[in-house]
């Protein structure tokens, strides 16, 4: 077995040093009834080429995004990842390192996290960011709990434009909580979230661009929340939008949570992704997750360490800010490298390219008979209403090799108002030929 270094002879020698007759003796604390009392109906070990063949056969049964025109978004986005990013994250010293518990020999990871935190703070316009969370959805739930700790108030209002999966995760984290108000998703309006704010409100949660692609007015929301002593939590599922849109921090956001997958990370069928979290500096001790800070070593040289760990579970145990004991280190590395490669100039150009392609897409779709584009504003994603049930239409287009977006009913099952809605995204990878193919297919299907 190629991963196991011992020969039987070495195993025997080692047992001799231990003074054990056989390896079973080392399992003597296991109740006899439970030790190797079964035969596993699983295959035996396999050579590399056979394992590879098995996995390739499975992979081949999937339609990859690159196989044809592709417009699927709704919280995960297909962007180009420079070859340099994937090369660098596969270096052993990044890939196979552990959490930087010994800072003297983990300065690579720690400095990278410090740089990552700086990048996230800059693009969100916030004072401080952490070293990443699992993903945007769990980050949103953590932000909601964080807002309750900060304000010592309990009511949380979720905008109807929040991604339905994010809403469901918050609901699971706050199970049966009467003080959680989830507004109905409206494919057109902002809803009445501002009217929900009262003296008991800890936070309102607004996503922009929202689930349907509309851009939301954060300044008005921040002012309304702050007037009642509530916080504004801003959720962003498409972080590329920050290259073009005003930073939430400049508009009064208190906590910003984002899904960082778009920068440096592949679609991966939903994970691993990375949650970005940034906040005002006065909230730092209530922020969950890891933080990397700058300090000096015994020689006075600049160095970095994980810090403020008195918030964390391994010290505070049941009084910790969260049970989280990890971050998405490698995804954060990919994000940070890609963001460094882009720089300000590249990040802005990337955002403009996304927006430009989305404008092409929106205008092309608007000209298709039986299609109505619902968005007045958007970044790279929009919602259309079609004259046929959307789910069947999307399935039909998939048979033609076109992945045409997400039928809203997939995320909002049981809501008859959304049966005819499709959410579509364009990115820098969307070509005019892709759009033409979609328009032609849609025109035929809707005729």
């Amino acid at each position, binding site marked *: 077995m190629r991963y196991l270094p011992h020969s039987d002879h070495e195993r025997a020698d080692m047992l001799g040093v231990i003074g054990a007759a056989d390896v079973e003796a080392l399992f003597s604390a296991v109740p006899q009834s439970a030790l190797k009392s079964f035969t596993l109906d699983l295959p035996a070990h396999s050579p590399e080429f056979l394992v590879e063949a098995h996995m390739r056969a499975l992979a081949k049964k999937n339609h990859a995004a690159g196989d044809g025109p592709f417009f699927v978004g709704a919280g*995960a986005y297909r962007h180009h990842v420079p070859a340099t990013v994937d090369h660098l994250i596969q270096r052993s010293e990044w890939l196979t390192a552990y959490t930087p518990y010994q800072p003297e020999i983990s300065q690579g990871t720690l400095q990278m996290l410090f740089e990552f935190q700086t990048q996230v703070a800059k693009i969100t316009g916030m004072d401080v960011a952490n070293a990443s969370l699992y993903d945007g959805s769990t980050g949103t739930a953590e932000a909601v709990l964080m807002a309750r700790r900060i304000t010592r108030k309990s009511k949380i209002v979720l905008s109807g434009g929040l991604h339905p999966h994010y809403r469901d995760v918050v609901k699971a984290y706050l199970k049966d909580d009467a003080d959680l108000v989830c507004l109905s998703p409206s494919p057109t309006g902002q809803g009445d979230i501002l009217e929900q704010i009262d003296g008991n409100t800890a936070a309102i949660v607004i996503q922009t661009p929202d689930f349907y692609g509309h851009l939301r007015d954060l300044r008005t929301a921040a002012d309304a929340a702050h007037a009642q002593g509530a916080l504004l939590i801003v959720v962003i599922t498409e972080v590329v939008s920050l290259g073009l849109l005003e930073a939430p921090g400049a508009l009064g956001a208190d906590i910003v949570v984002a899904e960082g997958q778009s920068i440096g990370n592949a679609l991966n069928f939903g994970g691993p992704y990375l949650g970005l979290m940034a906040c005002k500096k006065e909230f730092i001790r209530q922020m969950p997750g890891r933080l990397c800070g700058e300090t000096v070593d015994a020689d006075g040289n600049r160095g970095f360490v994980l810090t403020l760990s008195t918030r964390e579970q391994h010290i505070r145990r049941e009084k910790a800010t969260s049970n989280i004991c990890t971050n998405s280190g490698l995804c954060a590395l990919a994000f940070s490298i890609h963001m460094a490669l882009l720089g300000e100039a590249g990040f802005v150009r990337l955002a403009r390219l996304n927006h430009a392609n989305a404008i092409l897409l929106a205008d092309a779709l608007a000209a298709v008979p039986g299609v109505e584009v619902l968005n007045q504003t958007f970044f790279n994603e929009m919602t259309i209403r079609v004259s046929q049930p959307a789910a069947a239409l999307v399935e039909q287009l998939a048979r033609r090799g076109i992945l045409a977006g997400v039928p809203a009913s997939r995320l909002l099952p049981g809501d008859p108002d959304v049966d005819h809605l499709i959410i579509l995204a364009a990115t820098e990878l969307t070509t005019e030929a892709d759009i033409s193919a979609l328009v032609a297919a849609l025109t035929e299907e809707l005729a």
Partner: protein
Amino acid sequence: MSMNTQGRPTGVGTVGTAASGSALLPDEPLLFEIGDTEHSGVDLPDVDIGSGRLGGFARKSALDLAGLTEPEAMRHYVRLSRLNHSIDSGMYPLGSCTMKHNPRLNEKMARLPGFSDIHPLQPVSTVQGALELMNQLSHWLMTLTNTAAVALSPKAGAHGELLGMMAIKAAQEAKGEAHRSVVLVPESAHGTNPATAAFLGYTVRAVPARDDGTVDVAAVKAALSPDVAAIMLTNPNTCGLFEPQVIEIAQAVHEAGAFFYCDGANFNAIMGVVRPGDLGIDAMHINLHKTFSTPHGGGGPGAGPVVLSEALAPFAPVPFVRKGEGGLDMVEHIEGQALGRVTAFHGQMGMYVRALTYMLSHGADGLAQAAEDAVLNANYVKARLQHLFSVPFPDYPTMHEALFDDSFLKGTGVTTLDFAKAMIDEGFHPMTMYFPLVVHGAMLIEPTESESKQTLDRFCDVMAELANDAKAGNGERFSAAPMKAPRRRLDETRAARQPILKWERPGDLPQAAE
């Protein structure tokens, strides 16, 4: 070395001049000190978007985001990487963290476009291979644990723990026993266990450990009452011991109407040898990264699927895969379902690919052999060092990790931390220190199955030499350590008291948080 107004050494001043650097291991400035807002390593056209469709929300402020050209980026990240220890560069005997070899086949397979370039919300008819893979992984996990169901979606071990306890809470409520408000947690548990229980609103009741490092069924019985919802027990436990009374504990917990949550962080010690379902567990998370070799990547991502007993299977969250007409189907929503979902989309697909690749490579026979070798290696280290180090719990053979305490250092003036830092100068990542909390000055060593006898011998020789040196009164070697790392000991107190969590452009006002 130059210092700025905050008393911080400036990066530029240290480049190439710092004592800590060397010809082949220079200090590396921050990317913001190398880069420039006009540098870019990505060629993209600058398109005209006219007035756009942004509705007046366009960015007005500058980002001040430094960029690197491709050659600059390559050097920056390669040079930074060389400041890290990693499992590919040397032994990483961190107890409870399980740093085993990460096969590169796993990486290659995870990068097949059929896995990496598929969207979680594209039609399920176009991702049948992905669903099949999730089904196969589920089958392996349920077979290895002898359990009835598995929830794949949790993003990490602690997230799996949260889900498992949510399922228990939902099950108690379904039984009409929502009043059960207490969770039993042994003192030796991971910090995530009490944090998870408290997160869900439970009161944590500690269960003391016996003098031999294991949990006494009598102590559990004494702590059980009608208000107890569950026990959270790690097995093998954090002292590296298999809980000998685990079956009796499970029975007592069930008789009291409570559930048995098992922290499966240490499943690598028993995979293929013991099935947790046979012990009476109701829920257990499995850290795919620890047990099935997906790389840690400097702190994550992890993956924490949870296996569930018959009693808890109905409370599994969405999504899950099931056979439908004409293929596999993904159940993403159940009306009135107790738990709903704990993450967007379907979990850590990239980790599922790596874990299944590893399982198929090892096979059932190889996984059992790996567990046995992990246990063999830990016992070998214990046997070789027990005469020089102090063993707090000598009664049982250790499982996959060897636990020592620091009483052998008494009177030497050398602390556990000093000892660990001296290991760095010898080329080893230190073991886990000061955990588990039940042992004063704990030193938890987990060699894993992927270390050869040669490596273990060298490790034990170095450890023995260090122990002898400490006892001989050579304190300087320890108090000054590390001498040979990229950095000397770092001032963690200063980092916490005056947090500096991001780079500020020199000349900007200092903006230390708080």
